């Protein structure tokens, strides 16, 4: 390696075969190159969905500040769990216990804080610790047994849901535990999940007339939007963190390698087991962020929360261009998948369309995005 010699783009050919342009490789235009990326399917889907709702739900307030906040929050919820599922899927594994984990963590927080009287911050930390430990156990079992993570986490889907319902009923004789808002008031950590930021900005926006104010009721004179919910902040932070981790760091390369071909990665010294277990823990962490935000927002926990969330997370990730078998995918794509999910779910509500059509619409988008993604992926990776 000669680091000192300046590198020139036109290396002198040293042999006849050297650096001669291969006549059987087509040059790709810059435009086409910039288009061919894993997120393309999700970008197209996003444009399509927004155009659709701009047309059919224009006059309904869907794109007024409150409307945006409405679907923004729903999308952020999907995004939080999609980010965890995305990194885990790229590392080659699934976590089907996400939904049960949401219910479980929520009930842990409510039981500890409301029923047993511990401070809310302590309850939140304990919930995170237990959830992340269960994530590690998921990963450990997958690695140790060599079973598909599909099966191992499916077992935890049932175990955790059962434990949650049992724990809730055995201690409080009901499946919904309320009263969290009262005990969380003034708590230093609870605010991180249930609070709102940038309130002053919206006061200012209301003062200059860009957004409306309440005209009557107890909050008369206040802007219609109090601030950006921490849920959205969490979603944005997690997306940025996971995107940089995946695409810009050494560890990100290990995530791709672990999912692409674990054995090949092991042969060059990538700590595949550690990477996979850490990703299971991250998935559990994201589920607990979701659960904590939800408990703080509703002021209660319920044992049946988070039902089917694992599939919604996986669908967002797949719309975002990830390969179900691992080794390929994009956090930005998964986030757009979550946005599509949120916009479609709330948009149909705004447009007054029968809500059962939500599933039809979603199924069609899923199918279209996946077909497009498969085609793009083949172009990028040379799969046949």
């Amino acid at each position, binding site marked *: 390696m000669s680091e000192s010699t300046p590198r020139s783009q036109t290396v002198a050919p040293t042999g006849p075969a050297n650096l001669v342009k291969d006549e059987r490789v087509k040059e790709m235009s810059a435009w086409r190159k910039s288009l061919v990326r894993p997120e393309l399917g999700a970008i197209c889907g996003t444009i399509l969905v927004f155009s659709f709702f701009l047309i059919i739900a224009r006059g309904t307030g869907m794109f007024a500040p409150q409307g945006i906040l409405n679907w923004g929050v729903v999308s952020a919820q999907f995004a939080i769990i999609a980010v965890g599922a995305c990194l885990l899927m790229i590392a080659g594994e699934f976590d089907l216990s996400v939904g049960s984990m949401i219910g479980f963590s929520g009930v842990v927080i409510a039981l500890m804080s409301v029923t047993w009287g511990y401070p809310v911050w302590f309850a939140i930390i304990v919930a995170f610790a237990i959830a992340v430990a269960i994530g590690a156990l998921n990963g450990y079992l997958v690695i140790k047994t060599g079973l598909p993570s599909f099966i191992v986490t499916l077992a935890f889907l049932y175990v955790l849901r059962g434990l949650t319902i049992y724990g809730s009923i055995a201690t409080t004789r009901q499946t919904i535990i309320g009263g969290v808002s009262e005990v969380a008031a003034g708590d230093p950590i609870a605010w991180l999940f249930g609070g709102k930021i940038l309130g002053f900005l919206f006061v200012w926006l209301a003062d200059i007339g860009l957004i409306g104010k309440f005209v009557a009721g107890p909050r008369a004179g206040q802007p219609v939007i109090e601030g950006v919910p921490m849920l959205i902040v969490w979603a944005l932070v997690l997306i940025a963190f996971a995107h940089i981790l995946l695409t810009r760091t050494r560890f990100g390369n290990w995530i791709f390698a672990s999912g692409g071909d674990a054995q090949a990665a092991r042969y060059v010294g*990538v700590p595949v087991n550690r990477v996979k277990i850490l990703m299971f823990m991250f998935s559990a962490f994201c589920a607990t962020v979701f659960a904590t935000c939800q408990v703080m927002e509703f002021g209660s926990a319920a044992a049946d929360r988070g039902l089917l969330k694992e599939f919604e997370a996986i669908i967002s990730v797949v719309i975002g261009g990830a390969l179900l078998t691992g080794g390929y995918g994009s956090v930005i794509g998964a986030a757009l998948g979550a946005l599509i999910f949120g916009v479609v779910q709330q948009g149909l509500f705004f447009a007054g369309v029968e809500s059962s059509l939500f599933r039809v619409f979603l199924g069609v988008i899923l199918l279209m995005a996946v077909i497009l993604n498969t085609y793009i992926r083949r172009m990028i990776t040379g799969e046949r």
Partner: protein
Amino acid sequence: MTKPLIELIDIQKHFGPVIALAGVSVSVLPGECHCLLGDNGAGKSTFIKTMSGVHKPTKGKILIDGEEVTFSSPRDAMEAGVATVYQDLAMIPLMSVTRNFWMGREPVRKFGPLQLFDFDRANAVTLEEMAKMGIRLRSPDQAVGTLSGGERQTVAIARAVYFGAKVLILDEPTSALGVRQTANVLATIDKVRKNGIGIVFITHNVRHAMAVGDRFTVLNRGRTLGTAKRGEIQPEELQDMMAGGQELAALEGSLGGTV
């Protein structure tokens, strides 16, 4: 005579009741291509896995530069300068050439408190090393899946050489390749050898072995049948030794020498 880079003396490997290797001795000199020939089941794979630290030998010694060593993991072997390019596990097709090239040893640069993958440097080095091997990449971001089989082997070889391999083990690098790609890989082997790196070339194709080999060792049923220098042995003899008998010679006669 120059000192061998690596010497394996009377290596035995037993898997429970199965004796996979019953005493194999091979040495590799700097700048030579040592061909390891053997039919399926002869113990080639077990032997190279022992050499590259995947398996621990049941009996026998491994010497590197004359010093006895024990490898407890492939990482140990790599640090001692023994690199292995596996036939189908060399590269991850979904990942870019750069990501594959640096896998497990990614260069980082500091960006504030963060340690980021230094793509500028990684891409530049990858392009340069591939150019040395005579491969022109459209872009270092292109997925390995878009490369031909021969090019993939070359990326893997270039990677091993760049990271300081003294001994390079190639596990049947040509067995899945077409004629032209095979020629490219054999040419790459020749280039690498000229840098003083010792190569262990595993194959069951006598013609590929004869094209680049300096010494030839035949494995049969877990044993070495001896090592011969270039010019001391005929392709037909190697073929017979691999088959472990005269059956193939008879068969070869009836097929007109095409095997």
